């Protein structure tokens, strides 16, 4: 005998959230993750510069491999081939920096200005997010993205160099290049993540902030570098890509080309760290200042 048929209507009413809430301290992670997700969404924000960095890396790696293969058959020209293998990464560094600049245009230079313009500060700070979570989250997100461009490529090239060593002794001798490239990459990340973020917090208009950063980097940088030719070379450190290049050359013991000013290591380090610190300080100041202004309305 079959059972009596039944029917149910489910109560789709509202249920309060009974779970735990993530602690306040983890907010920065949410913001950083969000930063990265937004960057990844479109083809032009991050994927394009990343592609360019990959191409740069591929070209440099290709040259290294080519030189390595032909080394034995070149006779006296071997020296040049060996030189190419040794210097590929440091020479490529400035190209990674240029890609890093392009990435900064779409990533970091408009972040805070865009938030100010669209009312995002109200969105963030009417909740339990504090200004420091906001700043840390944005920074970490940007640093993660930027380092993929200016650290990952050079690192791969460095490891490739190690792989192209002729003997194990050479390999061991070259091991210190890994921490060196990481240091250079870290400094480049400071330049291309923190400084544009600083500029984006200066002006409440996205386009203006972007223009200001581009102008500072390109025009002011070019002027400083040009000045370094005629006055003290240390001034050239104010041109960010050249400062990174200088650190790379010093660490990897390359010689500067004749017509290029030899920017001293301490000037380059000082410039990069100084720029980044100033930028971060500016960001903290601006965010603190604006954080409760957006909440509460006009009346």
């Amino acid at each position: 005998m079959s059972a009596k048929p039944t029917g149910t209507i489910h109560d789709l009413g509202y249920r309060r959230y009974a779970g735990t809430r993530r602690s306040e301290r983890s907010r920065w992670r949410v913001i950083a993750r969000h930063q990265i997700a937004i960057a990844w969404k479109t083809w032009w924000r991050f994927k394009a510069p990343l592609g360019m960095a990959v191409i740069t890396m591929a070209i440099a790696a290709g040259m290294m491999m080519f030189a390595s293969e032909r080394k034995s058959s070149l006779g006296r020209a071997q020296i040049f081939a060996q030189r190419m293998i040794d210097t590929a990464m440091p020479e490529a560094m400035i190209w990674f920096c240029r890609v890093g600049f392009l990435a900064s245009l779409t990533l970091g230079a408009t972040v805070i200005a865009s938030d100010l313009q669209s009312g995002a500060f109200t969105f963030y700070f009417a909740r339990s997010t504090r200004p420091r979570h906001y700043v840390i989250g944005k920074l970490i997100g940007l640093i993660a993205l930027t380092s993929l461009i200016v650290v990952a490529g050079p690192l791969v090239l460095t490891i490739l160099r190690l792989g192209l060593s002729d003997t194990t002794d050479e390999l061991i001798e070259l091991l210190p290049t890994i921490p060196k490239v990481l240091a250079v990459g870290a400094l480049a990340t400071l330049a291309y993540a923190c400084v544009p973020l600083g500029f984006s917090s200066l002006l409440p208009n996205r386009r203006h902030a972007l223009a200001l950063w581009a102008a500072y980097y390109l025009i002011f940088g070019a002027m400083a570098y040009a000045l370094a030719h005629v006055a003290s070379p240390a001034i050239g450190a104010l041109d960010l890509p050249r400062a990174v290049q200088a650190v790379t050359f010093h660490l990897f013991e390359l010689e500067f080309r004749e017509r290029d000013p030899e920017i001293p290591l301490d000037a380059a380090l000082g410039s990069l760290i100084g720029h980044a610190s100033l930028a971060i300080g500016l960001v903290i100041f601006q965010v603190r200042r604006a954080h409760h202004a957006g909440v509460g309305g006009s009346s």
Partner: protein
Amino acid sequence: MTPLLELAGLTKTYGPITALGGVDAVVEGKIIGLLGPNGAGKSTLLKCLLGLIPFTGEARVLGLSARTHGAEIRDRVGYMPEQEAFLSGMNAVEQCTYAGELSGLPRNEAMQRAHAALYYAGIEEKRYQPIDGYSTGLKQRVKLAQALVHDPELLFLDEPTNGLDPRSRDDMLELIRELPARRDCAIVLSTHLLPDVERVCDRAVIMHRGRVHFVGTIDELRADAGNASSLVIEVKADAARFADVLAAAGATCKATSPVALDVDLQAGATSALVFRAARDAGIQIRGLAPRRESIETAFLRVIGTAGEPV
């Protein structure tokens, strides 16, 4: 039951300017209207209650001190701002999910609640399109959804019907009115539109020049004209003539428009008098109600003076 808000001696000064001058109030209820002219201190009050600025005195929201537990208050309170509060380049679902995560919800929970909140706010497929292209009405709804996503116990709504056309305004007010029942939360509604307050709120808090002048139910706010013999009558036409007719019958009348009049009947007279007089004079009565003070008049009375522009 913990009152929603408990304020004692709440004071906030910006240099020589006193934005809040010793506010004392205990606020309970379901939907509370926060009223006051510009410069009354409403936005400063809100910032203090959310724990965003320092102040002297006591302020408790849902039993938590705004001075020490600001972040926790902001987790349990939803805020719907007057101005734009969006991130560009995202759609409504992403925004609301992000909002939920920023209030401490795990990602999946946040996304589920984001969808539920958007349904409540009446946004259907549009939720997958970037917010930058939304109309004003839709933007207001998304703001409401953002305020609801993290399961708050109390909502602050700041001019929620701003810029909405009459139909959308009605919809929004209905959404607001149903919130306490459907979402188990209380609401503080800050607005300049007194009829909205009349329609939706059960209590009111009136502020002026940094002080609270009134806390209580809407009924308490309105001084009842007292008795069933003070009436407002609406007629199909000829209000002035009807006023004369009623006056002849012993009532005090004043025509306020071609179709409406205020009537004070003599002691002992009932509305039957009105109907009889109307029938005899060939007037059609279309409306009759006890004359109650309008919210506007009550508001002005409580405030006391006409303020200068602030």
